[in-house]
């Protein structure tokens, strides 16, 4: 059964029939807020843009005011599309983009079911209906508290729908024969280069292929071993 592993960044551990486990890093309150704020800005801009342009066209002059007497055309062409864009933004986009919205894409997260699959229509609808509760009393107060106190960082809507937000795995490219050749070329000149120069070149090449070098400096031997691994290349 899928479980979450407690760490600084919790992971959703998925069993598979193949026997090879998967671990999905679960997004926390920070990534959620980041995605939400971007999405909120987008829908606020869309709302304001539609309302503004439609109101100007409706009034035929520089005025955004609603008519004194309620007019069906005002509601159909100005209010309903603007309000629909604002309130149905998440529901429509999450359904259309398989659990993603522009904000979630920018934050590098997406909605997944607890078995790691893309959530179904029912789960996404339920998740969004429960925004009514999560958004209480103001500014998603309940939802925010829920994401802070639950171990999977989920809001009430996620609990109801059986979903959570996971970080997207960035697409990586496999090293090609050309990459192997570059690595081989550097290795052939390894002893003729100064230590600084070869380490600089090695890190530059290896960084392009997914090796990460944080604050700790890589040793000469480590870099050489990694270059040798790359030079053997996957396509030989």
């Amino acid at each position, binding site marked *: 059964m899928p479980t979450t592993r407690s760490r600084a960044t919790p992971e959703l551990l998925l069993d598979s029939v193949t026997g090879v486990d998967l671990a999905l890093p679960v997004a926390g309150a920070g990534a959620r807020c980041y995605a939400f704020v971007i999405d909120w800005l987008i829908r606020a801009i869309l709302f304001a843009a539609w309302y503004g342009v439609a109101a100007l066209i409706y009034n035929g002059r520089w005025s955004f005011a609603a008519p004194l007497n*309620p007019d069906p055309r005002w509601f159909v062409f100005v209010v309903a599309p603007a309000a629909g864009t604002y309130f149905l933004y998440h529901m429509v986009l999450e359904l259309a983009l398989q659990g993603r919205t522009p904000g979630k894409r920018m934050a590098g997260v997406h909605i997944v079911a607890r078995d790691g699959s893309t959530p179904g229509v029912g789960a996404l609808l339920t998740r969004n209906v429960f925004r009514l509760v999560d958004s209480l009393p103001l500014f998603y107060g309940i939802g925010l508290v829920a994401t802070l106190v639950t171990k999977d960082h989920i809001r009430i809507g996620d609990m*109801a*729908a059986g979903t959570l937000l996971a970080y997207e795995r960035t697409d990586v490219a496999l090293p090609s024969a050309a990459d192997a050749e570059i690595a081989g070329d550097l290795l052939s000149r390894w002893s003729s280069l100064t230590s600084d120069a070869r380490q600089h070149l090695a890190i530059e090449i290896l960084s392009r*292929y*997914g090796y990460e070098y944080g604050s700790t400096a890589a040793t000469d031997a480590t870099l050489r071993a990694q270059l040798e691994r790359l030079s053997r290349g996957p396509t030989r």
Partner: protein
Amino acid sequence: MTRARAQTPTQRDEALQAALLQRTEQWQSAAARSERLSRERAANLADATQMADDYRLLAHDLARARRLMPDSRVRQYLEAAYLRAHATLYREASRPAEALLSLFRVEIPAVVRWLTPHIIWATAIFILTVGAGYWMVHTYPDLISLFASPDLIATVEHGQLWTAGILNIVPSSVLSLQILTNNIVVSLFAYCAGFVFGLGTLYILGLNGLMLGAVFAFTGQHGLDGALFRFIVPHGCVELSVMCLSGAAGAAVGEALIRPAHGDRMKSFQVAALRSGKLLIACALLLVGSGIIEGYLSPRAGIPLWLRMAVGVGYWLAMIAFLRPFASDVTPRTESTVFSPVTPAAPR
């Protein structure tokens, strides 16, 4: 053979690594297929079954890459490809027309049958609170200020219903849109509020019942209860029934938290929310109809009571036919293809 036996562990690992790295084209093909099938249907049966083979291939090679090349680009690539294949393979089949047909023909009636005790209880609570509201204002008339706005009270005290002449101010279309939007939100809220162990749902049901009873008592004191009944009857039969239905859905959510029936509270809550949530789709559709009636027919003067009764009862019977609570060809607790709770992967 002799040379193979003489290999050191390192040499053996390097040989395995080399053999593994010769399969990159298969990985790329598998990744492309799972990416394509995440967006569209398989071209044919072979295409679909190849996806399952790809999944096994990626799993096998990922397990080796994790051991042989734990910090390599290859392992990262295989992790991402395997995850995408997993998501594609476990994704729900996309058959929207079939799913919708099944939802309305089988699943919603099954939910109504499953929720029958909750519907009975929600209706009883609603009727009791209507009676309580009526009794309170009938006995202590000043209490109407707890349930109605000053404008409404003033209008009734002047011998008129607040709905009289409303169509001169607001067109029917706008009125319908406002009413149906408001009713759908209240209905969804009654369902979601079940999260507070059912107390939120109880509050919404109770408050609406008290208000209805109180307003009936208040209009009765001014001789307008007949007019109020004439106004309410065309749309109210379904609207009030839907209130009880959404209250029942919320009560099921609350009950799942109070006494979990599926393992832990979280799982029970999820199952109840997804299962009873189907009924909310029916509720929303029914409220669109009653909103249109309330905007176009209910406030219009000159429509005889028999026609109002016919519309109200007719729409209510149509609701019963739609929900099919007495249908025998549905299995209660049917798992939805649209709203099914996530089933965990099979254990190893």
